[in-house]
């Protein structure tokens, strides 16, 4: 079996990304996550080139061009350094001609306000002055077509497409307002979930920057790939450290406590079990999560409990007949089954990673039980018995110490329960992701310079036709504009409204520009123009344009105007569904706008990292209490079947309850938030704690001796080592499990050895 497992381990595919810890059963949540991944900057590498005091922004632009040239396939498919694709010769006439279809009621009001004799005179004088200069002369056609700057309305609408709030254009490059930073946005075909590809990409980008950036400048970059790479590298290092430390320390402890070369047989059980469980998981799931592998150290700590108990039982008993094994194995079997049942709770989880951990652990426990009961006794057959001479129902607890122990325990429990009330849930995946300090700094710097464009919330308007999706997007824009303010919204609605909205705009435009109003304005322009020196027909092109209606705006029209790249950030088509995106600040206020039922927003989905985290937190909290309830029922049923006594049931639960209370209490005091990995930690404390309880109570019925105490202490210590090794991990998900379970075990072990016997005496006192 071991050989088969080792063979299977050759085909192991390690999955180091965070996907296994994202819900896959809730289609809504899965769809939200999928859409979150499509946010404009998620798949792109954003490079910020900071220009130091010794260099000018022109130097920075030149360096950014060199970098852009060096970033080539297969790592990068395209690098954008500015709005290069936009051709003003196409865009400006398009924008001016589009006004009848774009101008809203507010826009017409603003136009009306600007049409005053004083306003017109001032504007015409400006134009006259401009004609003297070369740049003014160059603009004369436009000045004739738009003397009153109505096209400014169109320009304002273009602002709604701008993601980068802290940006200005310099030499056709994205430059920060303070002219000390240049921005490059590089597209890569490498998926975020490809850890090896991400590692190569990050290294490649670093090399390019090192090669091209002079000393007086500093280049940094942010991208989801940097996170993927950092997480993968950290987890790989953690796997080595955690598994090596746990294996070596457990072996040392076994020899220290057993003082017998046969401890090696005991050690072989958990190590074989980890191989078998890993192989079985690979066989079932094809790929195994790195977190699951790291969980191997926990499995080492759990699965050695059974061989340890068998070892000490047999040493206590001395030579045994085959038939006697059943009696020895009964508590082991029950303990293993209880732990399995508790892990089985995780099969109900929405997180594939948690289900995989459940499978991995259960296979491991089954294998451990099998080896411990069927194989190990035969390997230990020649071992000499060391029956303890003193047996008592209290173990080492003397009557005089019993009350102080119970008093301290009771006080600790009350304190812990009180502090546990401060515990908070955090479903944010970033809280359990590896984020190196340097990356945090870069993120903060990019955010400060260019705005928080990488973590916007998204509202997705869907439709089976583009018109339907655009129509919903228009309704959404009108709704959020009132509440959020237009400057905060990045939307395509002002530039490409639905056909319905465009027809409404056109009607309004026609109603506004009546013959009478047009003639009045013409009269005013001619009169003021004549006074300044303009000919009567100077602005005829303007009045012709006002009367023109033009064609309705389309997606193709926007592409021809040079807005193709921008449009593709807003409109996607997946199968037969069109999706139009609107980007909003990811704040609680904005999130709240979408929580209330609003029929006007039918067909629009709101997605944000904040909301996603809140949803996961909510699901996590609900599931957690469901798990706790289910685990409690399982425990009670199993313990009742095993002990057939409520008193013993209560005693066996003492380590579990103590461990959990202490864990939650210390987390509450220390401000450690409860994350998705702590759900596993809780179940571990229950599983490990109940093992200790069952062993202790089983032995109490026979009278506790030194072997029992050794078994309990050793199995508790090895579990603590297995879990404690996780504390050495740098990855927050692993260290989080290690820290919290160690806290729990620090309560469970002493309570099993000290409190259970003390309580046993108290409960059984006549």
């Amino acid at each position, binding site marked *: 079996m071991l050989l088969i497992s080792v063979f299977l381990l050759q085909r192991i595919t390690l999955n180091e990304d965070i996907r296994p810890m994202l819900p896959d059963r809730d289609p809504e949540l899965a769809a939200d996550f999928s859409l979150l991944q499509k946010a404009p900057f998620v798949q792109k590498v954003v490079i910020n080139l900071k220009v130091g005091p010794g260099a000018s922004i*022109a130097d920075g632009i030149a360096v950014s061009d060199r970098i852009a040239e060096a970033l080539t396939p297969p790592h990068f498919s395209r690098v954008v350094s500015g709005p290069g694709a936009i*051709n*003003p*010769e196409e865009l*400006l006439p398009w924008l001016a001609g589009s006004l009848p279809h774009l101008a809203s009621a507010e826009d017409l009001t603003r136009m009306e306000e600007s049409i005053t004799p004083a306003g017109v005179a001032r504007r015409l004088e400006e134009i*006259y*002055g401009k*004609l*003297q*200069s*070369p*740049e003014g*002369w*160059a*603009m*004369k*056609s*436009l000045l*004739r077509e738009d003397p009153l*700057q109505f096209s*400014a309305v169109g*320009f304002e609408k*273009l602002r709604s497409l701008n993601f980068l709030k802290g940006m200005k*254009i*310099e*030499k*056709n490059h994205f430059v920060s307002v303070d002219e000390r930073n240049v921005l490059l946005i590089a597209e890569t075909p490498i998926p975020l979930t490809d850890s090896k590809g991400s590692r190569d990409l990050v290294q490649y980008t670093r090399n390019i920057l090192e090669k091209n950036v002079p000393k007086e400048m500093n280049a940094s970059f942010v991208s989801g790939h940097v996170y993927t790479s950092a997480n993968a590298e950290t987890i790989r290092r953690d796997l080595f450290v955690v598994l090596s430390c746990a294996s070596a320390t457990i072996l040392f402890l076994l020899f220290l406590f057993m003082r017998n070369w046969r401890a090696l047989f005991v050690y072989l059980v958990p190590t074989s079990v980890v191989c078998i469980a890993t192989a079985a998981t690979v066989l079932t799931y094809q790929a195994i999560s790195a977190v699951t592998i790291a969980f191997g150290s926990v499995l080492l700590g759990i699965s050695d409990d059974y061989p340890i108990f068998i070892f000490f039982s047999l040493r206590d008993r001395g030579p045994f007949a085959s038939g006697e094994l059943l009696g020895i194995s009964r508590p082991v079997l029950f303990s293993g089954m209880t732990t399995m049942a508790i892990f089985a709770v995780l099969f109900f989880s929405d997180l594939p990673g948690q289900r995989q951990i459940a499978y991995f652990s259960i296979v491991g426990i089954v294998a451990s039980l099998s080896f411990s009961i069927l194989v190990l006794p035969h390997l230990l057959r020649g071992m000499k018995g060391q029956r303890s001479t003193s047996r008592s129902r209290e173990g080492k607890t003397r009557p005089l110490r019993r009350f102080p122990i119970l008093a301290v325990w009771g006080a600790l429990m009350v304190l812990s329960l009180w502090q546990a009330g401060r515990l908070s849930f955090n479903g944010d995946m970033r809280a359990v992701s590896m984020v190196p300090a340097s990356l945090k700094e870069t993120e903060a710097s990019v955010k400060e310079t260019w705005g928080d464009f990488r973590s916007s919330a998204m509202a997705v308007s869907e439709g089976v036709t583009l018109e339907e999706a655009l129509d919903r997007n228009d309704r959404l824009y009108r709704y959020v504009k009132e509440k959020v303010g237009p400057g905060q919204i990045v939307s395509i609605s002002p530039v490409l409204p639905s056909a319905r909205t465009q027809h409404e705009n056109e009607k309004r435009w026609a109603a506004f520009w009546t013959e009478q109003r047009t003639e009045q304005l013409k009269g005013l322009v001619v009169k003021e123009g*004549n006074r300044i*020196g*303009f*000919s009567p*027909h*100077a602005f005829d092109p303007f009045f012709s344009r006002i009367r023109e209606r033009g064609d309705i705006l389309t997606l193709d029209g926007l592409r021809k105007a040079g807005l193709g790249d921008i449009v593709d950030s807003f409109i996607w088509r997946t199968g037969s569904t069109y999706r139009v995106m609107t980007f909003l600040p990811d704040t609680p206020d904005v999130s709240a706008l979408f929580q209330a039922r609003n029929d006007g927003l039918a067909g629009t989905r709101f997605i944000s990292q904040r909301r996603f985290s809140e949803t996961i937190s909510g699901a996590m909290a609900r599931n957690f209490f469901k798990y706790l309830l289910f685990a409690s029922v399982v425990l009670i049923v199993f313990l009742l079947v095993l002990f057939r006594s409520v008193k013993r049931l209560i005693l066996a639960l003492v380590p579990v309850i103590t461990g959990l209370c202490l864990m939650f209490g210390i987390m509450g005091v220390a401000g450690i938030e409860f994350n998705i990995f702590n759900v596993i930690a809780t179940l571990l404390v229950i599983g490990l704690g109940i093992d200790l309880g069952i062993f202790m109570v089983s032995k109490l019925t026979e009278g506790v001796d030194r072997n029992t105490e050794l078994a309990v202490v050793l199995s508790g210590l090895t579990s603590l080592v297995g879990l404690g090794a996780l504390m050495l991990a740098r990855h927050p998900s692993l260290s989080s499990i290690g820290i919290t379970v160690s806290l729990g075990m620090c309560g469970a072990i002493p309570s099993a050895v000290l409190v259970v016997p003390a309580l046993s005496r108290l409960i059984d006192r006549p």
Partner: protein
Amino acid sequence: MKKKLTDHLAIAIAVLLALSPCFLPAGERERNPGEEKISQILSSVAKASSEIKTISSDFIQERQTSMLKEPLMATGRFYFERPQRVRWEFLKPSRSGFSINGERAKRWKDDPDQWQRFDVGKEPAIKAMTEQIFAWAGGDLAWIEKRYEIAIRSEEPLGLLLTPRAPEEKKYIRLIAISFSPDLAYVDSVEIRDREGDSTRIRFIHVALNTTLPENLF
């Protein structure tokens, strides 16, 4: 955004096309007799102007457009220093101007001391104008010949007619007429006619060559 309005127009691409002395090196391809003549004339211009390091002059600009009832007249000062310094300043009817010194550019309105830096790349009209000046002054004949078809309008005084080759430039400029001083050392006047029938004529008067120009002009 208002500045972007200028982006799509290059109508003033050659406003000061021949403000500086120029020389045109002979090409290597075989030339027809007309081209040969032009080449000889341009060589003469180049020879006459090769000693010129600085130019300073007054100018009179006359703009005629159907937009205005009367021609728009303006006067000002022009300064050039090899290789990449230029100052163009209107004095009447209103004061404004710009100066270029290599990569640095500044402009002003009303008071020259209240100047502001600007990006020449964002002002296509000024960019085109200064490119022309520097190309001619730097003797980049290939660039000039590539952009314009050159014909002789008159030999004494020398007058050339330049027609844009590039379709983008053709959209705005129909013809540029340049007249040289009798000794061919500097440009006497330049006239630009655009596609809409409007024109700009600039005459240079009180021309001084190779004087020392104050550093703060640029």
